[in-house]
């Protein structure tokens, strides 16, 4: 005769025996379904899409199924907006809601000087690719770098602060160290003096 304790222990084991075996390795069909889902991406309206939206908007609830969006209201003045009314009829589809507008990088010249600067930069880059590193003579390089330093510093002082290099500039860390080192040397500054100034000035 078994004790009550032994019976209690045996019961879960029996239940586990009846349950389907859990395999760590997914079946072939599960793997195929997973790959198919990866290829298709997240379908709008799916639970995954809702989870993604909930991550972006912590207040949003996961409902399991997204309710159908309300039909777009009819244009108030159909005659005033004939083209839009023709394509975007009431009840034809959900309404477009603009979530955000993101401005592009301003790589467009707005002054003649900027236009010339863009053209010169492009010309220098092209010459560098061809190995013509002496396309600019030393005095011209000194004049250009000096003027750029003064103009950038004046903007910085005036509160017009922007990154000195564009996000898309292909300048390596080594390039920067070479130029910064040369600039410091040119004005007889040591690296520790730069560090001190930065800590005092809070920059």
């Amino acid at each position, binding site marked *: 005769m078994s004790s009550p304790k032994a019976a209690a222990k045996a019961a879960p084991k029996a239940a586990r025996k009846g349950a389907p075996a859990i395999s760590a390795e997914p079946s072939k069909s599960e793997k195929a379904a997973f790959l198919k889902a990866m290829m298709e991406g997240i379908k709008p309206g799916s639970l995954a899409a809702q989870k993604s939206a909930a991550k972006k908007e912590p207040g949003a609830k996961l409902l399991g199924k997204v309710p159908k969006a309300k039909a777009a209201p009819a244009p108030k003045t159909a005659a005033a907006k004939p083209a839009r009314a023709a394509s975007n009829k009431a009840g034809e589809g959900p309404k477009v809601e603009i*979530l955000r507008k993101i401005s*592009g990088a301003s790589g467009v010249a707005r002054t003649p000087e900027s236009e010339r600067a863009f053209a010169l930069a492009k010309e220098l880059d092209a010459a560098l690719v061809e190995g013509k590193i002496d396309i600019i003579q030393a005095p011209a390089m000194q004049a250009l770098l000096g003027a750029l330093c003064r103009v950038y510093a004046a903007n910085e002082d005036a509160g017009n602060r922007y990154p000195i290099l564009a996000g898309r500039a292909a300048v390596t860390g080594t390039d920067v160290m070479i130029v910064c080192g040369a600039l410091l040397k040119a004005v007889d500054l040591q690296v520790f003096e730069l560090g001190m100034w930065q800590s005092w000035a809070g920059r």
Partner: protein
Amino acid sequence: MAEQFVSKASEFKDGDRQIIRLGEQEIGIFKHEGNFYAYSNFCLHQGGPACEGLTIAGVKEHLREDKTSAGLYFDEKSMHFVCPWHGYEYDMFTGEQVADRKLKLKKYEIVQKGDEVYVVA
């Protein structure tokens, strides 16, 4: 599939983009070199806002004849956008993930009528 008005074309400058919600879908609309491209804003990796990250040209390398490097450069003929969550990078012209071209964001057609921009969805 219906055309839905999005915006005035004149409000879209080159390089600009808009993220719109259309029913259950979120769509990123890009304007690049005068052309419009629209893709699902759900990243194939983990559902991040794929169309809201950095836009960047493809990086290539100049090689001299002896195969030594003459430096990296941005290939202006290609343009990518990068999901800000984990860096999945997509081709702006096709919506393909650049590391694995089999993975593709859902593409939406954009129709321009005069000064008005419509998305077909």
